[in-house]
């Protein structure tokens, strides 16, 4: 709940997502059942806290969805975890450079 009915976010479309970001946005929305259109997630929007407002339970769910879709497992001790999860764009870049499938 309390996920972005955020007018700014909704009107920000088209958000300038590249195809990989678009695909990941779709995964985010379906796996976490967000109340937002995938195309409306701005690539630089913060995912956790402000922005999309995800929490630690989402982080676990999201990691499982990413593992299923891309064969990439996230770990807590990835040095730059904070940066990886910062935005759709940073997460997508991390996945694209580390994905197994």
């Amino acid at each position, binding site marked *: *709940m*309390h*996920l972005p009915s955020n007018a700014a976010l909704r009107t920000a479309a088209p958000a300038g997502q590249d195809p990989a970001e678009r695909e990941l946005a779709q995964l985010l929305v379906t796996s*976490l*059942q*967000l*109340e937002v259109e995938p195309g409306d997630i701005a690539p630089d929007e913060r995912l956790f806290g402000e922005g999309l407002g995800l*929490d*630690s*339970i989402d*982080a*676990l*769910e999201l*990691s*499982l969805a990413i*593992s*299923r879709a891309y064969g990439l*497992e*996230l*770990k*807590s*001790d990835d040095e730059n975890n904070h940066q990886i999860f910062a935005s759709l764009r940073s997460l997508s870049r991390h996945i694209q450079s580390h994905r197994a499938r």
Partner: protein
Amino acid sequence: MVGPSIPLVGRAPDAALFRTPDGAVTGQAFLDAAHELADRLPEGGFVLNLCRQRSRFCVAFAAALLRRQVNLLTSDRSPERLAALAGEYPGLYSVSDDPEAGGLPRHHAMEAPWPARRRGSPNPDLPAGQQAAIVFTSGSTGRPAAHAKRWGALTDRSIAAGAQFGLAGHTVVGTVPPRHMYGFETTVLLPLHADAASWCGPAFYPADIRAALAASPGPHALVTTPLQLRAYLDGMAPPHVAMVVSATAPLDPALAAEVERRWNTEVREIYGATEVGSIASRRTIEGDTWTPYPGIALSAEADLVTVAAPYADPHPLSDSIELEDGRFRLLGRHADLVKVGGRRVSLSWLNSVLTRIDGVQDGAFLAPDDLASRPGARLHAFVVAPGRPVAGILGALRREVDPLFLPRKLIQVDRLPRNDLGKLPRSALAQLLPERSAGAP
């Protein structure tokens, strides 16, 4: 008069208290680090322990004890909450192991505690009555309330938990943070006095857990929550763990059974509350009877159950229970026991019926504010059930639940406003109601 006292570490000097990716922290290494930090801590009566890593959290806790300072544990780290604590506890300072994390204006940045420069530090006896920690109930009801924990009560409970679960020789891998009472007891305090070690590397994502299991000696006990357990069951290859321990919310017996079957393990559940700590356990698939920890005494008078434990003040339980030969069955949380049309029902029972319905991923009943005062008032419920029409859910509920208790409003939502431990504050749930039905007309 001198009361009983209990050593800081109740283990052998060479026993492994914590296991990290870089090796074990022994009882002696821990004492050395605690004394070293104690010498550096500022003056004060209270310290806000903000450490992230479990063994460092424990070193800071112990160092404060050596200085006769009281640890404050809070899960709410918003600037507003920290400022409020600093106002309530004059002279409060914070200690943290993370240079990048914030803290209070009075702050001690902890250095890496190992290896300590000193050797052979003593293992002092501390008074059982010494105030060791203050924890706060996160509160389904408004302002956080403080609960003081004495040293004797904390150590006694660690020893009791070790015996209750047969943890001797185990490595505990906890997925819950050390700053909550559940994680504090099971992953920070436990190894000081029970014959078990606590894993101190990351343990959140499935890959973390696999790495933890590979890097530390078994048998392992995975200490987690129902929500996380469901995610792990769905999302990871069966880990090899001797035991799973769950707390913070009721565990669905079907989930427990599935975990036992697929992971070839035993799933145990802790019953407790921040106010009284862990006080009982059960193996979830064996039924609804809970066995109190050694040393815990429950007494019932009318509807009120009081918990008595060594070195702790007697405390009323917020659940009603049925005592039977020293064991008990839960009847429901007081706030969960509501009357509809003069008949009593447990909201947690209704929730369990609701969430068992095919296609319902999550759900919760809500008693409106005017339930007791308005004769026509009924319960409401929220469901997360994508693609499942409300009528079908109501039909399924109707088969198990007295019509009196059926929700007047059954509202589809995308998710419930659970906090990071999966708990569902009533106030957050009430906000989901369409405005007109939030309370009295």
